[in-house]
C-alpha cells in the first residue's frame, strides 16, 4: 500500500517538475522542414529560373494579343482581349522580385558583389516587365511585409529605378566578389562579363521603349548597344531540363493529349507563308508544325476552330524550336538587340548602320533557329527583304522583329509602340466590346490585388502605359 502511495506521489511530482522544465519541452516550433535562411546561391538559382518562367508566363497571354497564337475556342479571353485577372503573372513577378530583394541584401552582407549585380539586373528585368503590363505598381513599400497595403509608385519613376538598377548592377558586376555563381546561375553560369552585356542590352531595350516620348534618345540606345551582346552566344536564356521541360513544350504535350493550346494564329502563318509579304520565310517550319494534311493553317483569332478536325490547324509541338522539351526560354537576344539598333539607327538617321543591323538581326535569328545557309541566303536576298538602305523603314524593321520575337512578351511592347500596325493584323472577330474596336493597351490589376490592397488604382484596358502615350 505504501508503495502505491509513493508511486502516485512520484508520478504527480514528476508531472509538476515536468512543468518546470516545460519551456524546453515545448520549444519544438522551429520549422524542421524549411530553413529560416536561404543560401545566396540557392536564391540565384531560383531567380534566374523564375525570370525565364515569368517571360513564358507573360508570353503565354501576350502572344494572343500580337496574334502569334490563336485560341481553338471562341469566347477566348486572351484572343478577345478581355479585362482578365492575371493574378498568376502578377504574383510570380512579385515573388521573384521578393527573392531578388532578399538576394540583394544577403549578397551585400556577404560582400558577394557579383550576386548583388545579378540581383539588380534581374530586378530591373522583372520590374520593367511588370510596368510594361500594369503601369503603376507597388515597389518602394513592397517585398518585406512591413506595409500590408503598399502604396503604388508612379510608372515613370519605376522606369527611372530600372535604369538605376541596371547602372548599379553593372558597377557591382565589375567589382571583386567574395562569392561567385557557377552552375547555380541558369543564365550565364556566373560569367560577369555576359551579365554586364545583358544589362547593357536591357538598357538599350528600355530606352527604346521611349520611342513615342520627347525624351527618346537614339544615341543613348546605340551606345548601350555597343556594350551589349556581341553574338547569339550572349543571349540571355534558360535552357530547360528533361525532368522539367520547357513550359511551351508542356503546352505542346498537353495539346497532343487533347488539352488544347499552343495553336498558331492565322496572322503568323500568313506572315511567314508568303500570303502577306509574298516571300516564303524558311523559319516557318521551326516555329510550328504542319496540319494533318501537311499544310500550314492558322486559326483566326477569336473565331475558334469551328467544327474542324483537331489536326486541321498548325500548333506548337515538341519538334519546334520554341517548344522543344529542353528548348531555352529567351529573355533577351542578340537578334532583338540588332533590331533595336536598326530602329535607333534609323531614327538617328544612320541608314547604313540601320540596314546592316536589320540584316544582321534576320541572319542572327535564322542562325539561332538553325536555318540552313541556302535558305537563309535566299530569304536575305529576296527583294522583299533586301530593300537596301534607302528602302528600309520602321514597318520593315518591325515586321522582321515580329518574327524574331516569337512568343516573347516584348513583342506586345513593340506592338503597342507600333500601334499594332502590322500588315493585315485585324482585331479579333469577337473583340471585347469594351475596347470599342481598339487593341488592348494594358492589363487591369488582378482581382487578388484589388481585393487586398486599398491603394489599387482603377484603370481601363485602353489607359496606355506612359511610354505608349
Amino acid at each position: 500500500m505504501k508503495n502505491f502511495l509513493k508511486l502516485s506521489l512520484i508520478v504527480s511530482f514528476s508531472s509538476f517538475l515536468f512543468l518546470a522544465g516545460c519551456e524546453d519541452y515545448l520549444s519544438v516550433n522551429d520549422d524542421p522542414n524549411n530553413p529560416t535562411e536561404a543560401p545566396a546561391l540557392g536564391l540565384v538559382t531560383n531567380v534566374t529560373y523564375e525570370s525565364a518562367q515569368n517571360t513564358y508566363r507573360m508570353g503565354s497571354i501576350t502572344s494572343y494579343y500580337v496574334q502569334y497564337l490563336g485560341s481553338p475556342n471562341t469566347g477566348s479571353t486572351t484572343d478577345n482581349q478581355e479585362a482578365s485577372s492575371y493574378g498568376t503573372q502578377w504574383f510570380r513577378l512579385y515573388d521573384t522580385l521578393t527573392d531578388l530583394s532578399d538576394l540583394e541584401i544577403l549578397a551585400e552582407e556577404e560582400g558577394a558583389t557579383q550576386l548583388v549585380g545579378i540581383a539588380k539586373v534581374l530586378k530591373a528585368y522583372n520590374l520593367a516587365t511588370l510596368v510594361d503590363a500594369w503601369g503603376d505598381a507597388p515597389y518602394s513599400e513592397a517585398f518585406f511585409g512591413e506595409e500590408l497595403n503598399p502604396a503604388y509608385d508612379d510608372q515613370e519613376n519605376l522606369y527611372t529605378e530600372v535604369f538605376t538598377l541596371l547602372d548599379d548592377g553593372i558597377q557591382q558586376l565589375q567589382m571583386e566578389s567574395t562569392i561567385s555563381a557557377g552552375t547555380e546561375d541558369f543564365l550565364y553560369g556566373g560569367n560577369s562579363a555576359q551579365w554586364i552585356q545583358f544589362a547593357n542590352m536591357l538598357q538599350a531595350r528600355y530606352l527604346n521603349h521611349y520611342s513615342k516620348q520627347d525624351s527618346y534618345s537614339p544615341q543613348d540606345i546605340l551606345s548601350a548597344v555597343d556594350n551589349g551582346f556581341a553574338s547569339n552566344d550572349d543571349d540571355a536564356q534558360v535552357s530547360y531540363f528533361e525532368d522539367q521541360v520547357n513550359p511551351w513544350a508542356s503546352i505542346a504535350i498537353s495539346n497532343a493529349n487533347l488539352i488544347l493550346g499552343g495553336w498558331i494564329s492565322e496572322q503568323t502563318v500568313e506572315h511567314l507563308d508568303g500570303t502577306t509579304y509574298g516571300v516564303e520565310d524558311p523559319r516557318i517550319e521551326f516555329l510550328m508544325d504542319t496540319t494533318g494534311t501537311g499544310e500550314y493553317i492558322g486559326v483566326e483569332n477569336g473565331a475558334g476552330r469551328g467544327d474542324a478536325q483537331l489536326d486541321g490547324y498548325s500548333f506548337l509541338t515538341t519538334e519546334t524550336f520554341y517548344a522543344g522539351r529542353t528548348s531555352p526560354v529567351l529573355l533577351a537576344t542578340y537578334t532583338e538587340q540588332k533590331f533595336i539598333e536598326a530602329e535607333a539607327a534609323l531614327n538617328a538617321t544612320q541608314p547604313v548602320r540601320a540596314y546592316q543591323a536589320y540584316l544582321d538581326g534576320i541572319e542572327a535569328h535564322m542562325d539561332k533557329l538553325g536555318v540552313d545557309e541556302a535558305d537563309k541566303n535566299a530569304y536575305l536576298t529576296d527583294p522583299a527583304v533586301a530593300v537596301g538602305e534607302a528602302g528600309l523603314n520602321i514597318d520593315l524593321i518591325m515586321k522582321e522583329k515580329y518574327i524574331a520575337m516569337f512568343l516573347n512578351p516584348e513583342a506586345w511592347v513593340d506592338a503597342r509602340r507600333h500601334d499594332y500596325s502590322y500588315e493585315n493584323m485585324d482585331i479579333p472577330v469577337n473583340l471585347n466590346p469594351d475596347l470599342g474596336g481598339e487593341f488592348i493597351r494594358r492589363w487591369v490589376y488582378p482581382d487578388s490585388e484589388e481585393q487586398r490592397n486599398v491603394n489599387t488604382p482603377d484603370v481601363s484596358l485602353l489607359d496606355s502605359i506612359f511610354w505608349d502615350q
Partner: protein
Amino acid sequence: MQKLLQLNFLSLFAFIILCFTGHQALAQGVVSGTVTDADSDETLIGVNILIDELDLGMPTDAEGQFQFSNVPVGEYQLEARYIGFNTVQRSVTVADGEETVVNLEMTMSNAELDELVVTSFGLEQERKSLGYSVQEIDSENLTVGNQSNVVSALGGKVSGVQVTNTGGSPGSSSRIIIRGINSLDPGADNQPLFVVDGVPIDNSTIESTGTPRGLSNRAADINPNDIESVNVLKGAAATALYGVRAANGAIIITTKSGEAGDTQINISSTVGFDNINKFPEFQEVYGQGWYFGQIEDDFWPNWGPKYEDTDQEYHDIWRDGTQTGVQYDNSINVSGGNELTTYYASVANLQQEGVLPYGNWDRTSVRLSGDISPKENFSVRSSINYINSGGDRVPADRFMETMMYWAPNEDVTNFEKEDGTQRGYYNDGSSGNNPLYGNKYMTYKDNVNRLIGNVTFDYSPAEWFNVLYTLGTDFYSDQRTEITPGPRGVEGENVLSSTGYINETRINSRDINSTLNLTFQKEVTEKVNTRLRVGNDIFDRDFNNIVSSGDDFVTPLFYHLSNVRNISLNQEIRQRRLVGVYGDLLLDYDNFLFVNVTGRNDWSSTLPEDNRSFFYPSVSVGFSFSDVMDLPEYFTFGKLRASLSQVGKDAPVYSTTDTYNTPSQYPLGGSVGFTRSNTRGSADLKPEQTTSVELGTDLRFFDNRLGLDFTWYQSNSRDQIFAVPISQATGYTQTITNAGEIENKGIEIQLTGRPVQVQDFAWDVTVNYSRNKSTVVEVAEGIEQILVGSSFGYVGSGAAIQLTQGDPYGNIYGRSYERYYPDNEEPENPTHLDEDAPLLIGDDGFPVTNTDQLVLGNTQPDWVGSINNSLSYKNLNLSFLIDAKWGQDVYSQYDNFFTAFGITKNTLDREDTRVFEGVTDDGQPNTQEVWLGQGVGPDGVDYGNGYHRNVKREATEEFIFDASYIKLRNIRLAYSLPQNFTSDIGFRNITLSATATNIILYTPFEGFDPESRAGGAGSNADGFTALDYPGVSSFFFSVNLSL
C-alpha cells in the same frame, strides 16, 4: 520523462491473465419464477436472470418465466436485469430436491437519471449532476446499420451532430461536425476529438495528392463491434477539461470489457451487398458526333445523330461499368474473468469490394484488454489494439470524368486489348480513355499498421481520495504506393500516361498522451457534497511524411523507383506538444443542485513563447427542480441546465516564423533553388478564444415513458488564427494573424418515448432535431472574403465557397443569368442572386450570362433530424432509422459535365424551339423563338455549338441544387432463435438479422446520392459533388452467435 512515456506496451500483456473457473455440484434443487412489470402487472420477456455465484444465467421465456434446475444447495443472490428497468436482487435458499419459486416484480428505472455518463478523460459522472448536454449511443444502436466506419455509424443518432459520408467507396472517410464550424481558416480541423478509453486518438484524413482517392479517416480503423458506448460531448462546457484539442467537441468511445463470470464468446458474421443507390437519368436517344452529324472517329460522345438513324446502339455504360460491391465482416470476441481479473479479446476482419471495379478495402483488428485488481483499492487496466487496414483506392473522380467522355455506342467493359493496352472508344480504340482500364491500372494502395494502446492505474488510498493515471499511445505507419504505367512499348498504343509515374508515400505518426487525475471527495455537511479533481495532461505528437516520386519508366511494366528517369523527394515533419493542468470542483447540494466550476491552463508548443500559456474557465449548473417542487404525478423528473464556458485554441505548427523553401521542381541540373515562403509567420500570435453559453432542460413524464431534452446554445469564436490573404506585392500571399469572429447558434431537441408497451410488444422511439446557424461576424481588417474552396466548371461556371463578413458560413458563389431591373433600380441585395427578378434575354434570344460572382446558395443545412424506432415482438426486433438533412445546397460538377456533353435526359430538348421566359433590355417580355440545337436551326439561324454548350453550361446557377434528403438510414429485422432451442445446441443466443442501409426516400436532387461530397472528411469545402464516388445502399445478412 521521455523514457517513462515510451513504455513498452508489449509488457502490458503480462497484466492480462486469462482465467477459467469450473464448478462442482453435489446436492441440487430448482429455482423458478415469473417476472412481471410492477406497474402494469404484465409479464416481462427476455429478462436476464442471473445467479452470479454459479455463473448461471438465462432469459425469461415468452410467458415471463424462468427455471434453473440442478442448482447446488446453498444460499444465493438471484439477480434480474432488464433494459429500462431497475435491476432486482433477491436472496434465495436452495434446498435439496425442492423447487424454490421466486416471483419478481420489476419497476421501470429512472435509469438515465442515476446513470453514469462518461465525460472528459473517460471519467464517469452522474447524468443528473451535469450542467450541459451529453448524448450516449450504446453498442447495439451504434452497430445496427453494419457501418464499418464508426463516424458514419453515428449518423442521425445524435442531435446537434452532422455526419457526412463522402461517398460509397470502401473505406472512404466520413466527416463529423458538432454544432457547426468554428473556424474561418479554410484548412482548419473542425472535427471533434476522438477519445478511446480515456486516450485521444488520431482521426485525421490524409487525402491523396493529385486525383482524389477517397482515403480513410483514421477513426475508421476502430472496429465498431469493440465499442460498448459512444458519448458525444457537444459544447465547450462538456469539453472544458480537455481544453484545446476538444474545442470542436469530443467523441468519447468506451470499449467493451470483460465481466466476472462465465466466459462469453460472441461470433458474428455478416455479408453485405452495395449498389449505387441513385443514378441520374441518362438520355439514350442521341449518339456520338457533333452538330447532329456522326463524325467517324470523333471525341464528342453524345452530340451526334439519333441512334435510331444510325446502325449504332446505346449501351447503359453507367450500369455496365459499375458493379455490386460485396463485403464480408467476421468477428469473434471472448470475454470473462473473475473478481480479480477480467479480460476481453477480439479479432475482426472486414473485406469490402467497391461498386466501382478494382476498388477494395480491408481491415483486420485485434484487440486485447484486461483489468487486474490485486487489491481492493487498486486496479490496473490496459488495452492494446492492433489494426491493419488499407486497400486499392480507385481514382473515382477520373473514372467518372472518363465515363462522361465515353461514347455509349461502344461497350465500356471491353477496355483492354489482347496485348494489355487500352481500348479507347474512337480511332479504332486508339483514342479516348476507358474508365475501367484507368481503375485497373492507375493504382493507389494504402497499407496502415496501427497500434493503439493504453495502461491505467487506478488507486484509492482513502475513500475520499483517488489517483488515476493513464498513459496511452497511438502509433501508425501508412504506406502508400501509387502507380500509373507508362507506355507498354506497343506500336500505336493508347496510353494512360506518356511517361508513367510511381509515388511512394511513408507516413509515420506517433501520439503519446499522459493524464494524471487526483480526485478528492468530501461531505461538508449532510446536504453538501464536494468533489475536487485536479489533473495534468500531456500530449506529444511526432509526424513524418516522406514522399518519393519517380516518373518516366525506363523499362515498361516494371514499376519500381529504381526504374525511373526522374526522382524527387519531399519530406514533411511536424512536432506538436501540449501540456495542461486543470481543476474541476463539483458542489452538490442535497442531490438536486449541482454547480461545476472548472479551469484549465494550457502550454502549447505552437504558440510564441510569450503567449504560450493560456487559461480558460467554465461554470455550469444543474438544477433538478422535480426534487424540490410538487409536480403532477405524470411529471416524473425535471431538470434545468446552464453553463458558460471558454476554451482556447492554439496555432497550427510552425506559424510563428518566416522560412525559405525549395520549390518542387528542384533540383534542376544539380542546383537547388530557394524562395521565401509565401506565408508570413507571426511572432505575436495569441490563442483563439471560444465563449459558449448553453441552456437546457431535461424533462421526463409517465415514469420515463416520455422524455424531452432541449438545448439552446450560442458560441462565439474570436481572435481566430488563420492566414489572411494579403497583397502579393508585400512579398507574401498571406499573413498568419489573429482575426475574425464566427458565431454558432442553435437548438437541439431530443424526444424519447416508449409509446406502446404491452405483452410481447414494445415500441421505442427517439426523435432528434437540431438546427444550427453559423455566421461570419467578422473576417479581418481590410479583408472582405475568405475562399474556402472551389470546384471546376466549364467556361468559368465553376463555384466557390467563400466566407463573407456578415453572411452565413458556407455561401456558394458563381456565375448566374443576368436579371432585369427597370431603370435605375438596383437589386435589393446586389451580392446575392435575385431569383424573383425576371431573366434578361439578350438580342440573340438567350439568357445573358452574368459573370459577377453572386451568392447562389449555401452549403449548410437548415436543420437535421431523425426518427429512430425499435419494435420488439417476442423474439423479433425491427428497428429503423429515418434521417433528414434539409436546406443545404450543392454545386454539382456532374451536371455541368452532363450538360457540356449531352449526357442526361434534360439535354433531350436539343431539337426544341423555345421562347425563354424573361424580359429584353427594353423591359418588354421576350417573344423571340430560338432553337436549342447545334448548327443551323429550322429558322435558318446558325446557333453554333447550341444552347447547352453556349448558354447553359456557362451559368453556375444552373448547377446549384437543393441537396435536401430524407433517407432510411437503416432498417434491421432481427430474430433471436428460441432459447430452449439454442441452449439445447449449446448456445446462449443465436440472432439472425437482415439490414438495409442508406435508402433514399426523398430528395429533390437529380444526380447521384445527394449526400456524397468531394474532398474527403477533412475538407471544409463541403458543398461540391465534384465527380466523386457515388453513394451506395447496402443490404446485409448477419448471424450472431453467443456461447
